[in-house]
């Protein structure tokens, strides 16, 4: 699924990365704990998280995460957005809660990161 489609399904606002909405999303990981993200997320999986700080961007960069969706309407501060822009990482924001956001994508056939 393209990031553009994720944006539509989750009713997202694009904070940065408008030019990268053709990014292919193969899996999704919904998680607020960055160490758990590092432990369970697979490369090329979209990260859905409520942790809106630099560490979310750093974690995404380290773990080959192609894009991040912040849930619960949480908006990153300017410095966090600047870091994402520097790393070329698209950031989207949805007002949906984590469970609802994951559920919508899962029901559209996007799998999770099951299997360690």
């Amino acid at each position, binding site marked *: 699924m393209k990031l553009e489609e994720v944006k539509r399904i989750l009713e997202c606002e694009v904070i940065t990365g408008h030019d990268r909405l053709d990014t292919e999303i193969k899996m999704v990981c919904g998680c*607020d*704990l*960055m*160490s*758990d*993200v*590092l*432990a369970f997320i697979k*490369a090329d999986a979209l990260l859905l998280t409520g*942790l809106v*700080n*630099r*560490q*979310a961007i*750093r*974690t995404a*960069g*380290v*773990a*080959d995460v192609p894009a991040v969706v912040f849930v619960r309407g949480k908006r990153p501060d300017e410095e966090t957005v600047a870091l994402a822009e520097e*790393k070329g990482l698209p950031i989207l924001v949805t007002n949906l809660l984590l469970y609802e956001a994951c559920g919508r994508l899962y029901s559209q056939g996007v799998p999770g990161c099951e299997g360690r």
Partner: protein
Amino acid sequence: MRRGQTPMTEEGAFRRNFEVLGEDFYNAGRVSTEIKEILQQVGVAATTVRRVAIAAYEAEMNVVMYARRGTVCLELTPELVHLLVRDEGPGIEDIELAMQEGYSTATERMREMGFGAGMGLPNIQKNSDRLVIHSTAGVGTEVEIEVRF
């Protein structure tokens, strides 16, 4: 990485040192990101780069969260990536306990940063081929990580 700055050891391995400051959450992750970029630039396979980056990031976060300061020494040989992370800090009293998934001594502030899930050292182990931890309570910790190609 500028080629002119590439220090070569006598054995022909690439070596570089990085400084990490305790409590410096703003820059936390910068060293591991830099290490990742170096490995990508020299053409290391993506899956290996990812393993090293994750292990380095967890080790770097441990220094930021718990220690006063630390150093990360990256060494690259034709066979492997070697990371030596040394810090001056409280040390780990019970390494075996710290290696257990879910065990954490993290503070509220560390949890706010998304860490302290008790997955740090287990994540390093999972992403490395060799992990050796030496620690002296009240002095510091030395973490040696090896990822083979």
